[in-house]
């Protein structure tokens, strides 16, 4: 396999991991939302991410060409092999925590996907084209929620600010590059995320400020998702997600 093909396989896997992990976390809200409309909205957003994961993994499987399929990528890899960003794996927390995480992720995709759309790799570009439309809707929703929660009651403000402060340190690695991604960026296949931080920061700060929330100082950063150095949360999540699949090796569902 050429270096570029190997790097693309790794890249598609990473993006698939981000999607499946976040999609799973969002799905944990179904039947736990503050009202019925939110249960539906969570279901919708989760479905979009599961759909993306399937596209990225299917592409990864095609590149790997070793008999694996999308489910092998999702269900047969351990937490140390997962390459998702840590932000995506944080537990659902309270409603404010989930919405703030969603805002950070949605703004990330808002700045990332138009770049991925330009990819020379047609599959990645096609996935981006589909995802852009979904992200537009996702961002409208998470932005509205953060505004309402930040500028709602004293309690909602406090919870939302706390979520912002607790999640901020996980956002730095969203813009880290490594050799694999640099190679792909140089080839016009992958996105140079290090160039996206300013745009992300501007959008997020504007929304937080409008929501009467304080933009945190960059005083701490936790990194490791792309190297498989995860938080303790991912192992538990995958244990649950993979249990049935792994209990029946080789079965079809």
């Amino acid at each position, binding site marked *: 396999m050429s270096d570029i093909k190997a790097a693309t396989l790794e890249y598609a896997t990473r993006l698939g991991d981000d999607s*499946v992990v976040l999609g*799973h976390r969002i*799905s*944990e809200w*179904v*039947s*736990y*939302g*503050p*009202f*019925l*409309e*939110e*249960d*539906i909205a969570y*279901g*919708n957003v*989760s*479905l979009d991410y*599961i*759909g993306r*994961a*399937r596209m990225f*993994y299917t592409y990864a499987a095609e590149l790997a060409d070793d008999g694996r399929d*999308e*489910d092998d990528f*999702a*269900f047969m890899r351990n937490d140390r092999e997962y390459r998702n960003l840590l932000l995506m794996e944080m537990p659902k927390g*309270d*409603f404010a925590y989930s919405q703030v995480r969603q805002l950070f992720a949605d703004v990330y995709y808002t700045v990332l996907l138009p770049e991925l759309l330009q990819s020379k790799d047609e599959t990645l570009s096609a996935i981006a084209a589909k995802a852009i439309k979904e992200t537009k809707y996702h961002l409208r929703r998470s932005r509205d929620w953060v*505004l*309402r*929660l930040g*500028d*709602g*009651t004293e*309690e*909602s403000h406090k*919870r939302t600010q706390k979520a912002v402060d607790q999640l901020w340190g996980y956002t730095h690695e969203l813009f880290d590059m490594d050799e694999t991604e640099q190679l792909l960026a140089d080839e016009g296949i992958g996105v140079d995320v290090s160039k996206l931080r300013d745009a992300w920061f501007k959008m997020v700060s504007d929304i937080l400020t409008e929501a009467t929330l304080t933009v945190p100082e960059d005083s701490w950063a936790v990194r490791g998702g792309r190297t498989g150095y995860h938080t303790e949360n991912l192992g538990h999540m995958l244990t*649950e*997600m993979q*249990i*049935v*699949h792994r209990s*029946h090796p080789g*079965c*079809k*569902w």
Partner: protein
Amino acid sequence: MTPEEQNFMRKIENEEKIEPKDWMPEEYRKNLIRQISQHAHSEVIGMQPEGNWITRAPSLRRKAVLLSKVQDEAGHGLYLYSACETLGISRSEMIEQLQTGKAKYSSIFNYPTLTWADVGAIGWLVDGAAIVNQVSLQRTSYGPYSRGMIRICKEESFHQRQGYEAMLALAKGSPDQKAMAQDALNRFYWPALMMFGPHDSESAHSQKSMEWKIKRETNDDLRQKFVDQTVKQIEVLGLEHPDKNIKWNEERGHYDSSDLNWDEFWSVIAGNGHCNRQRIEHHVAAHDEGEWVRDAITAYNEKKRVKKAQNAA
């Protein structure tokens, strides 16, 4: 009969729909509120046993299908709450009635989902039973309910197909998968039959509901339809029929079957099933935890309103 009553009965007899602004007997209204809200609550509580498997679905495709199904159920809950609101009751009142036990939901959701196969069994049998009932309700006399049913039936048939397809994958799979499918069928078959309610002779609301064409077919007739259609489906799966007394009756043109365990039925209705307490607790906990969120929306909207008024002044 007053002229209003006469006009109402004339419409019922002529198969004209009753609409929200039309005059209707108080009992008709109450009967409808009971039935539609019960139906709405069933959709909402039904999210729990299926939602129980979203995070453990064994493939990404199944996860997506299940998510989309549960999302549809929530959507059905919404239309039905809206249809019920046209009768002069608010959603928050209905939710309170659910949480205090004054309003019921389908007893089937008080059975636990213990394995992945239960998700298939629910789609196939529970949604299958619901469709038999709902197809009949498309002709119900109350306009908003009838229209809601037409819309809901389309989605439910997709649910039933995906459930049956999930069962088929298991039944044709490994011995463990097949055993899982059989076990789910054995547990869900009987409660699915109970979804049609008590025997006609025992049903408190049936007679009046039939007269007003809220209900179009009796509990026992609908149950028979379901029994009949399920026999062949079980055969195709290659599973054993849970009812050892199932037998074609040439004279009736229907299958004869065992009587149900009505003690169990009444016990679950009375709130003493496997999961009754858990389901309501879950609903109450989510609702209570959501209170600060709902308060935040109210406060935010109020701030916006005041600001707008100030800007206008």
